[in-house]
Structure formats: structure tokens, C-alpha cells
């Protein structure tokens, strides 16, 4: 029964919704933005989220995890999408934790994962080197010098890169640019000598950074998985991130859509509620149809992570492409149907519009995932 939530999962969803509405509504993001908060998220909130177990949902019990699976994670992601909650959930508890879990040594896992699970240690994946998602396009070098490895290169659009304690850096040990072979994954403290971090203020008021690595020397213990063989794990890690992000995007779309439908039922023009106009009704109904399809896709993709990982690439690309298109449609229509007030900063719809555009770029835009899906289908 992968496509229907069980009782436990519904309970988690209801608890998450209640907690987030009380502690991290969209206003909280507005405040972080207006205060130019140096961390970009509330550390207190993050610790509360960790206490609820959200930082450890996907981790096995031996590392302090809840072992609740991706469908469980998905309901929390969906709710954080509804409230646009800024937190290290995606970058650290999903992407970072998955990288360590799938590729880390037993020593790395047992020393780091319990801290990640407790929300005490945060991680960020330093991957992108251009303004489009090209996971094999890696020019950052990892060169062996004696017992150490030296990193040189530039990363961009590192989600949570300016706040994470440790960076998971994708670097090239060998091979040519664009090659899947020769990639390595290394753990580097954000404050290591030679690492310079420039926080980038993005449209969604969430965290990202440009990071330069200049002669950054780490011991070979910093390698996560064998040198030069990171691609297979990296792809799995990215797919998990894509699926979790798709769940967040579903929540974002649902919330923007529900707010818009509610507005159609209260706004009057020409002496009548604008929701009675067929021109708006049909567009709203088409969005409902897309939302139904996307919900099925997200639920299936989430359960695929746990139950059928061999199908994950296809499902992850389906989910990310479909949800990219959904949030673009729904947020654009949400602004349009709100009319003039829709383009004011006062109305929260604008926050959904902006988060949608950033989420659409993270881990692959629509074109990237359609190309990947087509390739996986053999054409």
C-alpha cells in the first residue's frame, strides 16, 4: 500500500502540520529575511525539529535514527513545503546523511551520523560548478600530496553552504571533465584553512553559497567512499534529494493552490464571487488534476527509495520534472488569480513563487530530468 499513507504516517503528518503552523509559519521566513538573519534559519527551531526526530527520520536506529523510511520523510517535507520552513532538513538530514550512510566508513558513520540525527552537526553538499545542474561537470581537483589530499576549485549554489559545519565536496581525482569516472567525495570542515565561503542571497530567502577551495589540505580519512568512485553513490544521493525536494514542492503547490481557491471564494467583482467565473474555474480544475497526478508520482517515488531502489533514477526524474512543472504552473496562476494584491510583498503568495523557482533549479531543472527520463527509457 505504497500510495496511501498508513496510520503512523498520517499521525506524523498531522503532528508536523500542527508544529510548523505554530512555530514556523511563512511569517517566520519573512522575519528571517527582513532581519537579515546571519544563519538564515532559526537554530532553536532546528533543535526542536531534531527533538521531534525529523533530522533522523531516514537513519537506522543504530545511528540514533527513527528508521521511518522515505514515505515518512515525505510527509514532513510536504508540510515544510506548505510553511516554506527554512531549515537544514534537506541539505543535512536527507542529502548529507544519505551520502554518509551510503558511502561512509563505519568509523565515519558511527562518529558523525548520531550527531546529524540529533541536529548537532549539519552537512552541505558542495557539487555544482556552473549555473545549471551538471553533476559530472566537475573541475574541482583532489590531488594526493603525501598522506594528504589537496582540494582546489570553485563551487556555486551550495544549499546551506554558508551555515553547514561540514561540507561534502565532490571533486575530481582523475578523469576528464564531464566523466562519471574519477569523482571523489570528501568531508571538509567549513572553517578549514583555504575554504572561503560567500553567502548568496537568493530569491527564496533561504541559504546558499559560493565556495572557493584554495590549497585545502585534508587527510585521506576525509574521503567518503573510495577515491575516484563516487559517481554511483552520488547519483543515489542526488535522487534521494530530488525525491525529498519533490515532496516539499508538492506541499508548496498544495498550499499556494488552496490559498488561491479560498481567495476565489471571497473576492467579489462585478457584484459576484470571482470563483463563479468559468474562465477561472477551468484553470483551477486543471491544476487540481495536475495535483492529483503529482501526488501519486511523489508517493511512488518516496516508496521506491525504500522498496525498489533499482527503479529510483526513473522515478526521481519523473518526480522532479513533474513537480518542477507543477510548482511553476500553480505559483504563476496563484499570483495571477490574486490579481493586484498577488504582486505585493505583503501577500505571502510571492514567497511561494520565489521558493518554487529556486526549488526548480536544485538538483536539476525540468529539461535535465526530461532528458534523463528519455535516456533511461532508451530514446
Amino acid at each position, binding site marked *: 500500500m505504497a500510495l496511501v499513507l498508513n496510520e503512523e504516517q498520517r499521525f506524523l503528518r498531522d503532528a508536523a502540520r500542527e508544529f510548523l503552523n505554530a512555530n514556523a509559519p511563512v511569517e517566520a521566513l519573512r522575519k528571517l529575511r527582513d532581519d537579515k538573519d546571519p544563519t538564515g534559519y532559526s537554530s532553536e527551531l532546528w533543535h526542536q525539529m531534531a527533538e521531534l526526530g525529523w533530522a533522523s527520520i531516514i537513519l537506522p536506529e543504530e545511528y540514533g535514527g527513527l528508521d521511518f523510511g522515505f514515505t515518512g520523510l515525505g510527509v514532513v517535507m510536504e508540510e515544510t513545503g506548505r510553511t516554506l520552513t527554512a531549515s537544514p532538513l534537506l541539505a543535512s538530514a536527507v542529502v548529507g546523511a544519505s551520502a554518509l550512510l551510503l558511502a561512509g566508513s563505519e568509523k565515519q558513520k558511527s562518529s558523525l551520523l548520531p550527531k546529524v540525527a540529533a541536529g548537532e552537526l549539519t552537512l552541505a553538499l558542495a557539487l555544482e560548478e556552473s549555473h545549471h545542474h551538471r553533476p559530472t561537470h566537475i573541475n574541482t581537483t583532489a590531488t594526493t600530496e603525501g598522506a594528504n589530499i589537496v582540494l582546489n576549485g570553485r563551487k556555486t549554489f551550495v544549499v546551506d553552504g554558508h551555515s553547514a559545519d561540514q561540507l561534502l565536496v565532490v571533486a575530481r581525482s582523475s578523469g576528464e571533465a564531464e566523466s562519471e569516472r574519477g569523482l571523489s567525495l570528501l568531508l571538509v570542515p567549513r572553517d578549514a584553512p583555504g575554504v572561503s565561503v560567500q553567502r548568496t542571497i537568493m530569491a527564496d530567502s533561504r541559504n546558499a553559497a559560493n565556495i572557493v577551495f584554495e590549497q585545502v589540505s585534508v587527510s585521506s580519512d576525509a574521503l567518503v567512499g573510495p577515491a575516484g568512485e563516487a559517481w554511483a553513490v552520488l547519483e543515489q544521493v542526488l535522487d534521494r534529494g530530488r525525491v525529498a525536494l519533490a515532496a516539499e514542492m508538492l506541499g508548496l503547490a498544495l498550499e499556494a493552490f488552496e490559498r488561491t481557491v479560498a481567495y476565489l471564494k471571497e473576492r467579489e467583482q462585478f457584484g459576484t464571487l470571482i470563483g463563479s467565473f468559468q474562465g477561472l474555474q477551468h484553470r483551477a480544475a*486543471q491544476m487540481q488534476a495536475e495535483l492529483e497526478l503529482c501526488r501519486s508520482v511523489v508517493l511512488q517515488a518516496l516508496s521506491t527509495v525504500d522498496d525498489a531502489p533499482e527503479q529510483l533514477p526513473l522515478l526521481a526524474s519523473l518526480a522532479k520534472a513533474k513537480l518542477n512543472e507543477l510548482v511553476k504552473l500553480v505559483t504563476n496562476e496563484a499570483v495571477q488569480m490574486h490579481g493586484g494584491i498577488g504582486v505585493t510583498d505583503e501577500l505571502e503568495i510571492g514567497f511561494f513563487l520565489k521558493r518554487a523557482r529556486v526549488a526548480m533549479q536544485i538538483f536539476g531543472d525540468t529539461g535535465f530530468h526530461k532528458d534523463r527520463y528519455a535516456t533511461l527509457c532508451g530514446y
Partner: protein
Amino acid sequence: MTAPIRRDVLQDLDQFRSEARQWLETNCPESQRQPMQAEDQYYGGRNARFPSADAQLWFERMRDKGWICPEWPTEYGGGGLTPQHAKIIKEEMKAVRARTPLYSLGIWMLGPALLEFGNEEQKQQHIPAIINGEVRWCQGYSEPGSGSDLASLQCKAEDQGDHFLVNGSKIWTTAADKSDWIFCLVRTDPNAKNQEGISFLLIDMDDPGVTTTPIELISGESEFCQTFFDNVKVPKSNLVGELNQGWSVAKALLVHERKLMSELGSESPREVLVPSAAARQYLDMVDGKIADAQLRADLVDYDMTMHAIGLTHFRTFEEKLADTRSAAPLVMKYVGTEAEKTKSELLLAILGSQGLGWEGEGFSQAELDTLRLWAMSKAMTIAGGTSEIQLNVIAKNVLQLPQS
């Protein structure tokens, strides 16, 4: 709460699946596992002949097994099985490529409505005859002046004491020229507001005064007819449900029609090309990719949509088992039929001028069928409630937007 499926139930289903597979393997003749042409479909009825001896054998075996209508009650000849069991039979039939032994509007539409609204006498008279393929049914809803605005229908049935006197006409009556009976919406109270004066009536098409004319379509087919009623006497016992309450019967029945239409396509007797396979056959490939970027993009859009629709069908089924509800079933007719149209346009684009042959030499059967299916696909977003009507229904029933 969601009732978890008990382990012993699951074991029972697993065992049923393997038994079903074995039975089908043993009992479905090899000839009944081949792709079908239109003439291979068996619709039953008074004047029907089986397309072949094997088709008859296959039908009779399925009938005797109770699997023509596995979910219907046993007292009327159904299988008396649960929806899970029925789904397994459907899946296993697909797995061994077994043909549908009986095509029937009686099974897909009238039967479920009769089981819900009919009286005991009507069920006894009609349900076994549907399952046994003895009577072929057609549907009389739309009229020349009443399409999307179905409730404005004018075909009238006047109370004459012991019978109704029916006058008027029905259009888009599928295969009316080959059918034995018709289930109709008729106006029984001319003074009532639109939906309130309508009744649901069963009419024997052999009755004096019933005539039928086929309508030629853009696909070249004439599966639809117009049916005329000229002073037709219909016994009062043929009224289903209460007098003037036919709309609620029709609404329940429309749900079945829309579900059916959202699942169509896989059941077509024509040689249906799969777009991704057709692309490999008809398009230039470079390094394993379709060279034409536009067609590749259109194909991946279509495949993704179908993937999502397939998953949503699974979800609605799981929701049914878990006794939870979502809006998904209400959007499926709209998304399913729109996707069918998209598919036909895509195939035409992939086949190029080879997809434009109307008949005769120079084209394969699959190519000719592709064009005819393309023309037929245009009806899918019109029949059973247009896409625009579907969107109205979603706006009203799901989103509860104010009505003008």
C-alpha cells in the same frame, strides 16, 4: 483508520492469483490470446454469431467459471468475488494476453446501475441475460438538442395508464443498429424543472415504432446512430427507480462510463502503436537518442504523463481498498481522454506522411489504424461528458467553487 490487509487475506489473494493464472493458462485457447481485429470482438445479443468456435469456447468457459462479471452477485450469475479478486483476474488475463470474451455495455454500464436501482424482477430479467451475452444493450441519453446540457432532453414518455407512450429521438446511440434493448432517459414530467422530470426507462428495440440510422464519422466509422421513437408503447414495469428520479440513476451510471473511458485505449481492437516503440522504428536516432528534439520532448512529456496516470490508477485502487477518498477518480476521465488525444497526435507526428494514409496500398495496417484512431480520439473528450463539463464538475464538486 486504514485497515491494514491481514496476512491471511494476502496469502489467500496470492493463492487465488496462482490458481487464476493456472486456470487461464489451461482454459484460454491459444487463438484467444492473439491481438484482436474489430471483427474478433464478441458483443453478444439476439442476432450475434461468435467470430469463431474458439471464441465461443472461451466465452462459455469464462461464463461457467463466473468470471464474465466476477464481482456481481452469484444469484444473478456473477462470480460473487471481492474487488481484489476481480482485479487479480483482470491482471492475470492481461498477463496471459487473454481476449475480453464479451464486450458489453450491459456489463460496463447498465448492470451496475440495475444492481443498485433496479427491482428484483428487473434484476432477474436482465442481469443473467447480460452475463450470458443474450441481450446487447445501447444507451439513449443525448439528443440532437441536448448534448452537454443533457438535462434539457425532450424525448417524452407519457403516462397512458398501463404503459408509457414514447416519442422523440436519441443521438450517439452506440451500435444501436446492432442492439436489442436501449436504456433511455426520457421526460416524464414536462412541467418540472430540468433534472426533476426525467425517468430512466428500458426499451426493447424490437417494439413497433423504434427505428435507427447510422451516422458516419470523421474516422469513416459509423458506430454511432440516431434512434427514433414514434408512438412506442413501453410497459410500466420497464421503469428503473422512481418516476421522475431517473437523473440519479443516470448520474451513477455516468460514473461508470467515465471510469471506462479513462481506462480505454488498452482495449482497442485496432493495431495500437506504442509511441516510444514507433519512435525507434520511424525516427532517426543519434547515439541512442531521437534526433528530432521537438519530437523527443513531446514523447517524454507523453510518457511521463502516462506514467503519472498509471500510478494514479493504482492509487485510486489502493484508496478504495483502504476505504479512503481523494479527488483522484474525479479527474481521471479528463486526464485520461486528453492523454489519448495527445498520444494520437504524437503518433501522427512520428509516422509523418506514413501516418496519413486513409486506405489501400502503400501503408501497413498499423499505419492505417493509427490515422483512424487519431480521428476517433477526437470523440473521446466529447463523449461521456466533454472535457469542459469534466472541469465544471471538478470545480463544483471538488473545489466547491461558487456556481454562477
